[in-house]
């Protein structure tokens, strides 16, 4: 699951970086960048961190 989370996190960056080439409208770029940031945060906080929390030392 951590690897899936890393892919999701990286995908958010790709979306944000690609915004400059996909559209020339600043509104469109802003939207894509914000979505990209959210996607990356979901990858980190919603996928990677929970995957590691499953085996947290305080649960043992």
């Amino acid at each position, binding site marked *: 699951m*951590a690897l899936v989370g*890393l892919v999701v*996190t*990286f*995908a*958010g*960056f*790709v*979306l*944000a*970086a*690609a*915004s*400059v*080439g996909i559209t*020339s409208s*600043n*509104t469109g*770029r*802003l939207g894509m*960048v*914000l979505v*990209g*940031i959210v*996607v*990356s*945060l979901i*990858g*980190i*906080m919603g996928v*990677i*961190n929970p995957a*590691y*929390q499953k*085996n*947290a*030392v*305080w*649960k043992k």
Partner: protein
Amino acid sequence: MKKVLLAFSITWSLALTGVAFAQAPAAAPAAAAATIDAGTVVTGVSTPKPEEKAAGDPAGTLTGTAADIPLGDAKKGLTVGDLASMLGQNLIATNFVWTLVTGFLVMFMQAGFAIVETGLARAKNANHTMMMNFMVYGAGMLAYWLIGFAIQEGGVGAVANLGGTAPLSSEYAITLFGKSWGLFGQKGVMLGGATYDVGVLVMFLFQMVFMDTALTIVTGTAAERWKYSTFLVSSILMGAFTYPLFANWAWGGGWLQNLGGNYGLGNGYVDFAGSGVVHSVGGVTALALGIMMGPRIGKYTRNGKPNAIPGHDITMVLLGCFILAFGWFGFNPGSTLGAAANGNLRISSVAVNTMLAGMAASFSGMLYMWMRYGKPDASMTGNAFLAGLVAITAPSGFVSPMASVVIGLIAGVLVCLSCEFVERVLKVDDVVGAVSVHGTNGIWGVISVGLFADGKSNYGGAWNGVAHSVTGLFYGGGAGQLIAQLIGVATLIGFVFTMSFVINMILEAVMGQRVSAKAELEGLDIPEMGALGYPEFVLKPEAAIET
């Protein structure tokens, strides 16, 4: 005869008329630009006589005169060319001294980080924590000298303030969406070849101490459980690859800084002194390690409720914060890379912005904690102070004193909220709060450039190759600058975090990140370092921790 005389007269008349026309004053030509030949000898300049200097110069009026100017031709004497050369040398020398001395201040921040982190750790880990901060300096410098500097600055091109840095002239780039995207530099490995250059060496020293700040941030989150051997390897890899890559994109001629020139997004990603490049890179890497390593034993109950694990010396923590603040006077103002020409007199503005933001954040953080928990918590006040300094780092060259106070006030509260979120919601054990101080507030600093840059700065007429001052949303700059900053944020969160996580996952598989539970409970000083940090103190047993 009369005909001859008539012809002669007519001829002469015509000739004289032509002469008259020729002699009539022509329209005044355009005045030629005044020029002075460089070989013109300068005369009449008085210099002290040898017998006057031999008598001593207590007033300082005989020292430092035209006689001290090196002559191109001693036989010819002082020329205009000699004067021009001296002016050029003085300009570059001023900038060299400024950049080097501010770099020395940043180096001293390592001491500040060391005692902040050691103070926030328990006494049984003092040796280990201090040694991580001590050797991160050497580990980072080694990696950076070997390859990191080349990746970051190998293609930065001419840095006018330092006399050109011409050897740093090779950037590897790809073409994407019709534009060139610089990815990494290719000159300067081990400072060999043409990069053995006085200007390049100034750049190396200054950039190296910034890189080391990013590396040392990570040790704060991972303290009290990080294997010392893995820490060394992880730091070397971060100094060699992770940090230099993002720094190239932001500062070294890479694609992030060229978002303005290539796609019309303001001046491209702007980060004056490194809220993103240094602090956020350190902060997201710290988050990666915090998630991977897991919390310290006893940090959370079985219900996931956090236990406070206080540090052993709050006086070290607050003293360390002051040392860091002192070093920040090198971190931010030094990022002009000069004190003469090209708008560099703004060093006063940068320095004042820095101190105001730190002050404002210390107040807002202290008051927030006081209202929330009933006491002005010392460690969080120190962290708030640092958060303000982190947040102002990116915008310090472009904003007003008033904006600096606002940025700091927000940073002071933001760090408290972020610490609570990281500890209670993410359940990531961040021993010193590095993720919140440097990661969260580094990102806030990056964003604040896109909001508060006021368009008043002018560093040589352009920034990142775009010929207008950096201007944010609140000052009529439109959304372009803000979008460029957010792309930088997305890169930090999406790319830098991923790269750091992958590198450390590999290290986890190969050598393990975390010490054994036995070593952790005993304290890392003996198992990892072979000696206690405080051998003459009897450490009291830890109070029973609620599980």
